[in-house]
């Protein structure tokens, strides 16, 4: 019981041997398995994360392209609206020009016509005056025509 001898050394050797054997047969294999399982779980986790990241990337891309499309649409719309505006203005201006021309034409024609009518009226009046004068002269003296008076009148009327 209370003695220290060679058996101490034997026990030390025994314990070291036991430690090595236990490490070899119990701790190492089990730890290896646990590590492998951990690695597998990590791998799966990483894969899932990668997949998630990829999905996120695609979503971002999609959103980006959506935003682009929206912008393009907006741009196109603005362009179209601007074009339409310009067209509208052009058309309106055209119309106005045309209307003005028509009006001017109309005014010019009216003037023309007026002049013609006036000329015609003058001529008629002159004829009427001649007739009237002939009538008057005829009633008073018949063939006795004061030719000087008559010419004078004619001249006057011709000047007009």
């Amino acid at each position: 019981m209370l003695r220290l001898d060679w058996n101490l050394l034997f026990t030390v050797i025994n314990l070291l041997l036991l430690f090595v054997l236990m490490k070899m047969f119990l701790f190492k294999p089990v730890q290896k398995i646990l590590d492998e399982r951990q690695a597998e779980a990590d791998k799966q986790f990483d894969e899932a994360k990668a997949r998630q990241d990829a999905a996120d990337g695609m979503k971002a891309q999609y959103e980006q392209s959506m935003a682009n499309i929206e912008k393009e649409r907006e741009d196109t719309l603005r362009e179209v609206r601007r074009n339409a505006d310009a067209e509208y203005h052009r058309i309106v201006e055209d119309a106005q020009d045309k209307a003005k021309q028509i009006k001017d034409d109309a005014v010019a024609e009216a003037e023309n016509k007026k002049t013609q009518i006036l000329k015609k009226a003058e001529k008629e009046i002159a004829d009427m005056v001649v007739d009237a004068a002939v009538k008057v002269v005829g009633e008073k003296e018949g063939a006795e025509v004061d030719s000087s008076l008559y010419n004078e009148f004619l001249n006057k009327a011709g000047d007009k």
Partner: protein
Amino acid sequence: MELYNNNDFKFTLIKNMGNLTEKLMEELNCETVFTIPVFGGIGVAESVVVTWIIMAVMVIAAIILTRNLRVDHISRRQAVAETIVTKLNGMVESMIGPEGKRYVPYLATVLVYIGIANIIGLFGFKSPTKDLNVTAALAIMSIVLIEGAGIYQHGVKKWLHKFTEPIAIVTPINILEVFTRPLSLCMRLFGNVLGSYVIMELLKIIVPVVVPAVFCLYFDIFDGLLQAYVFVFLTSLYIKEAVE
């Protein structure tokens, strides 16, 4: 008549006590099982032989438990092995902290060994821990491990410097600690096992039925496992202190 009877009782008790002393001495003496015929004969004590038996049991159990290990779809055997390893590692790691992860397998082995050695008396063997050689060997290995961990962690110079901390005047006490620590570890384990053994034997002589069974639960099983835990706990505490 009365007197005679009384004397008779006394006589039997004393005779029993004499027997007890003899029996105790016989039980306490670690017998030499066989002698190696070199250097004039080296006696191999019973404790060493029982240690071999424990080693055989542990290694065979380990081999059986860790056969056909797989990563998934594990068998029940593997589940048991994994549980044992995880629990043991967790237990020792909670004592030693993350810095001393390197020493966990050794401490776990020692924990299991002392635990089995303390309760193997129930199976008719003589506990190896009842032999001072075994506990001394355990304590010496512990102190070697503690100081080795300190040297490994800090290098020889800083390890030597640590003896003068916190002030130079405590250096002798620190050096003395190198010897008192294994001594107290050794004696605590040895004394506990021996003490509980002696108490159990006395109890068995005084009250042979029922009561020893109850006390056996405490002294043999609980105290045995607790002492294994305490031994490993103190060792890991010292290692933790050494590697800090």
